[in-house]
């Protein structure tokens, strides 16, 4: 082994070590939980259980990708859950009205995209804080979903549901592959495109972006449109899983996704973070839920346990950051 080879090896090792150090605590907690639950319960470590966890977490995974984008520009999108509600209702109503499959899916995604666009315009042009703009939008979208569905689930028989949520492709349901594609797409947009670097700049130092000749407004609107598209896809996934249009099925997703993003180590202050971290955040929440159920922990204690784990990892994360 020559000296240069040895140094490059060392460099590589150092890089890997650095990466490991930077990994959010969620990664370690997920590994810990998997080991813990597989000892504690019988069927946890089976392929079928993992497939069922994967199907359960896919809508939240896609929503959390969207939330990552918004958190990176130092906001939280509170309209994601309401938008999800609207998409499931709009899609199933379109199917009911006799619109063919593909156009109906596009209508559903377009509705969420338009809502995202409106969010972007309100934030960029009217200068409302993201928190308030999306809170107002959440109320409006919920109202649309509830009015259109008359407050109840809408059922419509179609083969597409089983195709998306159950049909296996290379060992995993189609839905999981779509989730993975969404994660990859968001990751590539954030790391490899100009829009990605603008999003990071928007979270870190928007003035610099303006100096560089880019429009902050335009970048903001693009972020929200992207968010809308992702929510649209997540809505189709969710409706396929519950096999209906439901005006309240998405409630809580906006906050669960915030938890996932924060657990994944994306910072609310300086535009740092990644979608990969978010994936681990989602897995942490879902595996914890699944494991607690399989370990027969009473549902009374579940939400407190999840809350304490979330709060604990947020604090650990902040502590590690400060040491840097």
């Amino acid at each position, binding site marked *: 082994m020559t000296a240069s080879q040895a140094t490059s090896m060392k460099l590589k090792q150092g890089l890997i070590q650095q990466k490991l150090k930077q990994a959010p605590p969620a990664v370690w907690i997920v590994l810990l939980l998997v080991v813990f639950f597989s000892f504690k319960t019988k069927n946890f470590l089976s392929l079928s259980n993992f497939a069922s966890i994967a199907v359960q977490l896919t809508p939240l995974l896609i929503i959390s990708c969207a939330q990552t984008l918004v958190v990176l520009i130092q906001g939280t999108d509170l309209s994601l859950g309401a938008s999800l509600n609207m998409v499931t209702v709009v899609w199933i109503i379109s199917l009911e009205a006799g619109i063919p499959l593909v156009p109906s899916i596009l209508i559903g995604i377009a509705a969420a995209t338009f809502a995202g666009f409106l969010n972007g315009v*309100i934030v960029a042009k009217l200068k409302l804080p993201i928190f308030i703009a999306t809170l107002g939008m959440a109320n409006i979208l919920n109202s649309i979903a509830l009015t259109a569905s008359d407050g109840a689930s809408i059922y419509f028989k179609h083969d597409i549901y089983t195709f998306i949520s159950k049909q296996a492709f290379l060992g995993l349901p189609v839905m999981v592959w779509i989730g993975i594609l969404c994660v990859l797409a968001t990751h590539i947009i954030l790391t490899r495109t100009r829009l990605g670097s603008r999003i990071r700049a928007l979270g870190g130092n928007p003035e610099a972006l303006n100096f560089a000749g880019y429009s902050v407004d335009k970048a903001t609107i693009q972020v929200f449109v992207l968010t809308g598209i992702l929510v649209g896809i997540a809505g189709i996934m969710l409706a396929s899983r519950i096999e209906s249009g439901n005006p309240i099925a998405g409630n809580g997703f906006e906050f669960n996704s915030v938890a996932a993003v924060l657990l994944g180590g994306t910072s609310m202050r300086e535009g740092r973070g990644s979608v990969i971290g978010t994936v681990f955040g989602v897995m942490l929440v879902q595996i914890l839920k699944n494991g607690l159920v399989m370990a027969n922990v009473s549902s009374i204690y579940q939400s407190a346990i999840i*809350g304490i784990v979330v709060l604990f990892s*947020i604090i650990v994360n902040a502590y590690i950051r400060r040491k840097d």
Partner: protein
Amino acid sequence: MNKLRLSFYNLQASQYFYSFMALLVVVVISSFMSGSFFTGNNIMTIIRQASVLLILSSGLTAVVLTGGIDLSVNNTAALVGCIVAQLLVNGFNIALVIVIGLIIGVLVGFFNGALVGILKLPPFVATYGTNMVVLGLATIVMQGAVVYNLPKNFTPIGIGYVGGIPIPIIIAFFVILVLFILLQHTTFGREIYMLGSNANAARYSGARSVLIYLQAYGLSGLTAALGGIVMTARLNAADANMGNSYGLQIVAAVVMGGTSLLGGSGGIFGTMIGAIVLTIIVNVMNLVGVNSYLQSLAIGVVIICMVWLDIFSRKKSDRLSKTLQTDTKSLERIN
């Protein structure tokens, strides 16, 4: 100097002016929508309905003025309500139970304040985490059940009258009065405003700002607890999810009243206006018989419009204050 101070007060007054105009517009439209809206009886009903929201959002106003946010208010209220109900049902003394409830609220607030002030967590993140834990604790306290039929001497806090005025209104009035004095006429209040306006944040030493954060979040916890107690007395029952219906409305009330999420500007009267506007919308739509699904549409639109109006007016007053400052500077130069 005097002139500057005068213009400062004028600007503050003008902020409330826009919120107040929005309130007037909502009142006028509501009066046109329903003949029974602008009657003494109904106005009393509105204020009574608004009182819990008012109490809950009053302490939050102090937190938002520091540039922070407290997302745990509604579930802190629920936790306190649940504990209070459980203790009462088990025969504890009412006054003692209320004191215990308030102390628990303050402790939750201190915890938030410590996370924000000492660990330097972003307020949104810290209080969001606390919110999850507090909700979980409330579920454990209730063991998944609902407690009702509280003692006869306790429920008047929520449904009783003194001299013809509902007790919740009297409590809300006192809370607002205390908050007004605290924020506008004490060193504590001035420090909260200064901490919130970034320009002055640097002037405070670490220990001092930690103390202010602890106090502000503690105050928010205290009013959350008080709101929770009133809520429980009014419902004559408690369950772990009773905070859900308030949720983010509490934050909306504060921000609609012109208190900036960036901190440093706004005040308790704005919050009062915000809470009343939110209550009026629901009230008038119920009077007219509008489908409840459409109520949230109206609420969403009004939230966006009112906050936009506030930001729009602030831009205008920023320009005004800039010209005022340059005027005084040029005056000084002339002298």
